[in-house]
């Protein structure tokens, strides 16, 4: 099947005061229709920048895309005019973000914002009344208790969970093909988190959406995604079905992440974190970007290493091959079966 989203060799830099910051380096990632992909990695590794840059949402300057291609349904997006990109964003790709508190405009009513967004998604082809109908319908779909009332509210009058539901309603009103969910539950407390994840799973199913779910929580990703791509310092280091990631992670960084997973039977302060820091992306090392923190480092790790397919559907960017690195302790591995 042809991929819905196909990112090839994408590189992006930020021109900063201190120099060129290599935020995204030679990233390839593709998504089949109907697939739900998790994108994980620690903070600052470039998850948001990657998914936003693909749809022209990273301001330039300071950002500059230096190479690569992004195809949606076979159509190249890089180099599209702003106008054309807006059509793509509104209609075909929806995004929801981390902090529902800050992604709604504080001085406009929820309804006004919904109606504006829906009209924009339709390229202005529908009137306010029709857009209002769609908005109320969507508010119902995301299970808001009293859609008419929430439609007339200002954002500060609503709870975080309600606001995230509204943002989801807004994003999905145009019935897009692809949903990018950038840590949609991180800012919410645990019970609300579970409700929102349930809602998303329901809508993905209902509306036949493909999804990229960004998170630094592998547990969250395991609940909704069938495949995971692991990012480290602007590169994808491993890309595999969710089962393989938990059962046989190949990249030492992925193994470290699994070690750092909170486990229900371990106290939270006992987390195994990976010692060391991110490399300086103003002057990144030519070889493996994880080398500074890797216990399996070898001389050949200093030459450029690309993502290679080692098993069906499982790619990794590391000189190690299956069986060469120690596997994580079994207690952590059990999590995805739980």
């Amino acid at each position, binding site marked *: 099947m042809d991929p819905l989203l196909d990112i090839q060799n994408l590189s992006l830099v930020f021109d900063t005061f201190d120099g060129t910051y290599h935020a995204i380096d030679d990233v390839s990632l593709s998504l089949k229709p109907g697939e739900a992909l998790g994108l994980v990695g620690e903070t600052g590794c470039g998850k948001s920048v990657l998914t*936003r840059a693909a*749809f022209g*949402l990273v301001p330039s300057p300071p950002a500059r895309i230096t190479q690569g291609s992004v195809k949606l349904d076979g159509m190249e997006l890089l180099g599209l005019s*702003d106008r054309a990109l*807006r*059509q*793509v*964003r*509104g*209609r075909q790709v*929806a*995004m929801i*973000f981390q*902090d529902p508190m*800050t*992604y*709604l*405009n*504080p*001085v*406009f009513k929820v309804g006004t*914002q919904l109606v*504006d*967004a829906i009209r*924009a*998604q339709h*390229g202005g082809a529908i009137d306010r009344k029709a857009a209002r109908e769609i908005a109320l319908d969507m508010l119902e779909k995301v299970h808001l208790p009293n859609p008419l009332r929430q439609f007339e509210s*200002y954002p*500060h009058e609503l709870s975080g969970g309600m606001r995230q539901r509204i*943002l989801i309603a*807004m*994003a999905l009103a145009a019935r897009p093909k692809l949903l990018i969910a950038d840590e949609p539950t991180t800012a919410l407390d645990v019970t609300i988190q579970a409700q929102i994840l349930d809602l998303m799973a329901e809508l993905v199913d209902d509306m036949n959406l493909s999804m990229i779910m960004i998170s630094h929580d592998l547990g969250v990703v395991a609940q909704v995604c069938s495949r995971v791509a692991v990012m480290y310092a602007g590169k994808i280091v491993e890309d595999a079905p969710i089962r393989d990631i938990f059962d046989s992670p190949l990249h030492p960084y992925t193994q470290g992440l699994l070690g750092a997973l909170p486990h229900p039977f371990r106290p939270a302060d006992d987390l195994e974190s990976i010692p060391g820091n991110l490399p300086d992306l103003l002057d990144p090392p030519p070889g493996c970007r994880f080398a500074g923190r890797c216990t399996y480092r070898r001389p050949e790790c200093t030459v450029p290493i690309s993502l290679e397919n080692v098993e069906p559907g499982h790619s990794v960017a590391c000189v190690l091959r299956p069986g060469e690195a120690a596997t994580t302790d079994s207690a952590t591995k059990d999590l995805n079966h739980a």
Partner: protein
Amino acid sequence: MLKLIAKRMGLMVVMLLGLAVITFTVANIAPGDPARLAAGPDANQEMVEQIRVERGFDRPLPVRFVLYIEQLLNGDFGTSVYTGRPVAKDIAQFLPATVELVLFSISIAILLGVPLGVIAAVRQNRPIDHAIRLLSVSGVALPMFWLGLMLQWYLALNLDLFPLGGRLGIFSDVPEPITGMISLDAVLRGQFAVVGEALWHMILPATALSLPALAAIIRVNRAEMLEVLGRDYVTNARAQGIGPWRIIAVYSLKNAILPTLAMIGLRFGWMLGGTVLVEGVFDFPGLGLYAAKAAISSDFEPIMAVTLTLGAAFMLINLVIDLLYAVLDPRVRNQI
């Protein structure tokens, strides 16, 4: 909302009383004998002493203050030694001119400053941003008084493009007063040629008066727009496919205008003060010029009255601005 207005009105009375105390004290410890002044230059010592007792100048300051406030409460602002007329009459005559000039000036500052701030922010670090910043810096750096003189000397005297001063040419048909603001009265009376002429006379003084406010508005609005354009809700609006024009002029500006509004309120006060200088330069017969002449001749009652009038005007404007704030920002609205 009504509660807020009532509360603020009460506060205004208290603040005006404070302002009266300060001005009263300062005006009375300034050198000069009020009795001598009131008696006029030809009066002999005996007449001066008689006036001193008659007008109460021999009483202690606090007593005189209370008497003065009592007089104000009876609606009596006293008499100007300089014009020889009741101060209330003078103010009624000169205030509209100043209000007209200040409203014209602040309109220029807002109508230019807000869009220029937006453009500078949207085109950050491009040539147009640098040009706008240059204008903004010069507005802060150039003294109002000097700027007024330069405009007058170059554009009015040398190039003869604008009138040297005044509110209207001597042959113009002054519209029958309704508000006392010539341009507005002329509109109301349908004398449209006079409208143009009145505005024409105000351009140079208004330019001098508005430049510092313009500079401040540009600076604040640019900074606020830059911040707002980086906010998450702007990213979300863009992700929905909403067009750049709507995002800038509606979604962002409504947020960025709030701090700018606070700045506009402050600048109003500066402008009212600035009229003393600018009206002097352009011989513009407003309250500023009246106050300057009263101050030079130590004419006590007009000084008090003008100070209190300008103080009340400033407080009223700021009340209006606070109400506007509540209209624009639902979070503020809920608190009041």
